[in-house]
């Protein structure tokens, strides 16, 4: 096996690189076909990404995406498709903001309280789907889609001034009230114009490490992966599959609950009608693109955040910024297709090698035994 390692490394890189090239070529074709300058948009995007403030924006956004994608990935690892991350993080952020705004505690405690509330709410919301799946067999795909919309309604109701929200004087917005400064998560200042990197971005990175550690180094993680790989085999091995489904749904929801925290604790300090939406769905893309692997997810989150932010100013230069969306779709497709092609190519190569060796007179068994 050892001797294939270098090849494997090359092949491992060949995939993504091939994919990016193909995606760029296709995007260029689209630009050409619509009669636009095929290179200028890239230049604008890279130039825009060279500004410190855009870089900070990219990193902050990637942190948020990373958490959402981790939440999705926990589910995927169990063969659960949590489409509900979106509803979970919105509801969690809203409740956490409410609680955060209504108490005044010393700094770390205040932040901890907010974060814990967010995790609990997220877990509660996904837990409904988990509960329905384990007790009533309701597909989590359906229930989480429904719960997303129900979360929207619930948030809309709770944020009404007559319930828990407030309408700042002179504003047409509704908010949950501002969290006192003790509940703000300090960020890393990057200079006057650039703004600061949310402190929670580092927490997100920590979550990635934790995710890796739990999945690969703990008994629980093994059980979780086993259940995802084969529910029946896991059950026979002593895993309580139902409990596992519920647990991983709860974890997924708790992590989803964190997805709103970078923004809430680092920037807005309140939940309002214009709190970012749709992050849960982007999280699905990123988790899939990163193949549920913590490092892969991190790279994907950065990539998608880069495309998002660096394309934001395209329209000011007369280019349609939808081109970045097209590019995103093309990248996702070509990356996964190339993974597959590279995998098959690897297999063919291996096959060839074995054939050659055989032709050279080595018996199959020696090949096998040598590998031991």
């Amino acid at each position, binding site marked *: 096996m050892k001797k294939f390692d270098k090849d494997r490394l090359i092949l491992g890189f060949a995939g993504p690189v091939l994919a990016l090239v193909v995606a760029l070529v296709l995007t260029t074709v689209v630009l050409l076909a619509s009669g636009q300058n095929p290179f200028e948009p890239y230049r604008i995007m890279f130039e825009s990404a060279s500004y410190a403030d855009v870089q900070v924006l990219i990193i902050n956004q990637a942190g948020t995406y990373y958490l959402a994608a981790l939440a999705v990935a926990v589910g995927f690892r169990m063969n659960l498709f949590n489409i509900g991350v979106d509803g979970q993080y919105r509801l969690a952020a809203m409740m956490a903001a409410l609680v955060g705004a209504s108490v005044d505690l010393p700094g770390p405690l205040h932040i901890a309280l907010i974060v814990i509330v967010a995790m609990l709410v997220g877990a509660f919301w996904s837990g409904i789907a988990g509960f329905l799946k384990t007790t009533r067999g309701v597909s989590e795909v359906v229930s989480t889609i429904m719960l997303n919309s129900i979360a929207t309604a619930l948030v809309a109701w709770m944020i009404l001034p007559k319930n828990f929200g407030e309408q700042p004087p002179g504003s047409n917005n509704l908010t949950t009230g501002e969290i006192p400064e003790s509940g703000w998560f300090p960020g890393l200042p990057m200079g006057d114009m650039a703004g600061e990197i949310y402190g929670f971005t580092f927490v997100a990175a920590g979550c990635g490490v934790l995710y890796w550690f739990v999945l690969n180094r703990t008994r629980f993680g093994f059980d979780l992966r*086993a259940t995802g*790989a084969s529910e029946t*085999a896991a059950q*026979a*091995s*002593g895993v309580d599959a139902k409990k596992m489904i519920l647990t991983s749904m709860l974890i997924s929801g708790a992590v989803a609950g964190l997805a709103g925290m970078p923004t809430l604790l680092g920037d807005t300090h309140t939940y309002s009608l214009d709190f970012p939406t749709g992050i849960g769905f982007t999280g699905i893309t990123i988790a899939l693109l990163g193949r549920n692997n913590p490092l892969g997810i991190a790279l994907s989150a950065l990539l998608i955040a880069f495309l998002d932010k660096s394309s934001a100013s395209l329209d000011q230069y007369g280019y349609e910024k939808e081109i970045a969306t097209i590019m995103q779709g093309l990248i996702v497709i070509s990356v996964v297709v190339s993974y597959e092609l590279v995998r098959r190519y690897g297999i063919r190569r291996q096959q060839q090698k074995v*054939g050659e060796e055989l032709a050279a007179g080595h018996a*199959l068994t020696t090949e096998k035994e040598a*590998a031991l």
Partner: protein
Amino acid sequence: MSGQGECVINASSSPPAVELHGITKRFPGVVANHDIDITIGKGTVHALVGENGAGKSTLMKILYGMQKPDEGTIAIDGEQVSFANPGDAIERGIGMVHQHFMLADNFTVLENVVLGGEKLYGIGSGARKKIMEISDAYGLGIRPDALVEDLGVADRQRVEILKVLYRGARILILDEPTAVLVPQEVDALFANLRELKAEGLTVIFISHKLGEVLSVADEITVIRRGTTVGTADPANTTTKQLAELMVGSELPSPETRESTVTDVPMLRVQGLELTVTDPDGTVRDVLAGIDFTIHQGEVLGIAGVEGNGQTELIEALMGMRDPDAGVITLGSDDISHAPTRKRRESGIGYIPEDRHRHGVLLNAPLWENRILGHVTEKPNSRGWLLDNKAARTDTERIVREYDVRTPGIDVTAASLSGGNQQKLIVGREMSHAPKFLIAAHPTRGVDVGAQAQIWDQIREARREGLAVLLISADLDELIGLSDTLRVMYRGRLVADADPATITPEELGSAMTGAAAGHLEGSEDEAR
């Protein structure tokens, strides 16, 4: 031989039904077939034997157009052919019953049969009529509108055969058709085969049960490590010789030599009841009044046609189902409602009947499969953390000691042949010094060499005081290995027998419900 090529068929010297010449097929890391030559005469039953992974199924898939050979030629009735897909092979009158059922569970028998052959008799009443016609002609007893998932294995096997006959195949490939059948069913199948042969059909037959092979085949080809190593004439070959040809060693026997049964009870089951509720609300008993005790050093064999509650019994013992009544005692602990993990930790080993569903994670590497089921035990973990390094080292030991044929411990379980997967499972379960072992079909689909190893391991552990519950469809194995035999029928233990005196035929008839009570005079059941 291929020089015979050009396709003029003389009535006088009719060409062989199938000629395979120089077939080579490579898979990643494995050469499944290497320069294989086989000629099969018309109207004969030709058996193919060989170890697990010898390349039998691959060869047949090539003949059936499912896989393309890397090299070599195929001639049917003297005419050279090249099949792009099974459709082409079917058109040439080839039919194949696969080693694993090729049935859509959620389809009716009728749908499964007509699929792909809709042009023959339509998909409605015409087809139903034809199916009944064939079913009656061969006594298959097929119900066209039954859902396949509701059928037992024997019925499924018959559906598979009917699928082939429905298409009017002249050349039948049967890949291990008897692995899941009881003797009576095997006899019925063989009767059918002889009938088919009399009608001029050619049958290619694969089996690990050499006795069967000798009884039904006209000619035998032995394959070893992907290539033909010889042919045998069943009339003057013994199973022993055949086995030697296959593996270069003696035919193993499951015979238990000396009794090691002690009178220390290891597992005691009293009044076990299990019911299931169907989606429509009806409650059925699947296990009723199950009582038995297994002592240290004892192998209790349970005979029975599949689907009579064996699976449920195993699952109740493993804690995968919660019994409605009854007590299960392991040693001195009541484990009736203990979770599976606790049972495994307290010393129950489990060789599942369906290894792909319950035994391995197909897409996980071998060393992770070694952890499966014993994640809380040493050497796999320390406290809450996994000990991957120790697990890997121990996997290497298992691979060595249990002769698992694999290029390494990082390959996925799926890339091992079934027999080797089984050896890994046995090795894993034995590595935790079980007090009580559930062995369900421990050698199903496993070649003779591996069979012997597995039997040896069970015997050895038994000598050291292991209690074993053995469930098997292979009655020779059951009789040979067990100290005590019980027969399960419709969720109850209806009969018991002494393995020393009972014959497979007698046991077989008890399994169909024809006999009950104690099957032989001598009452030496250890209770």
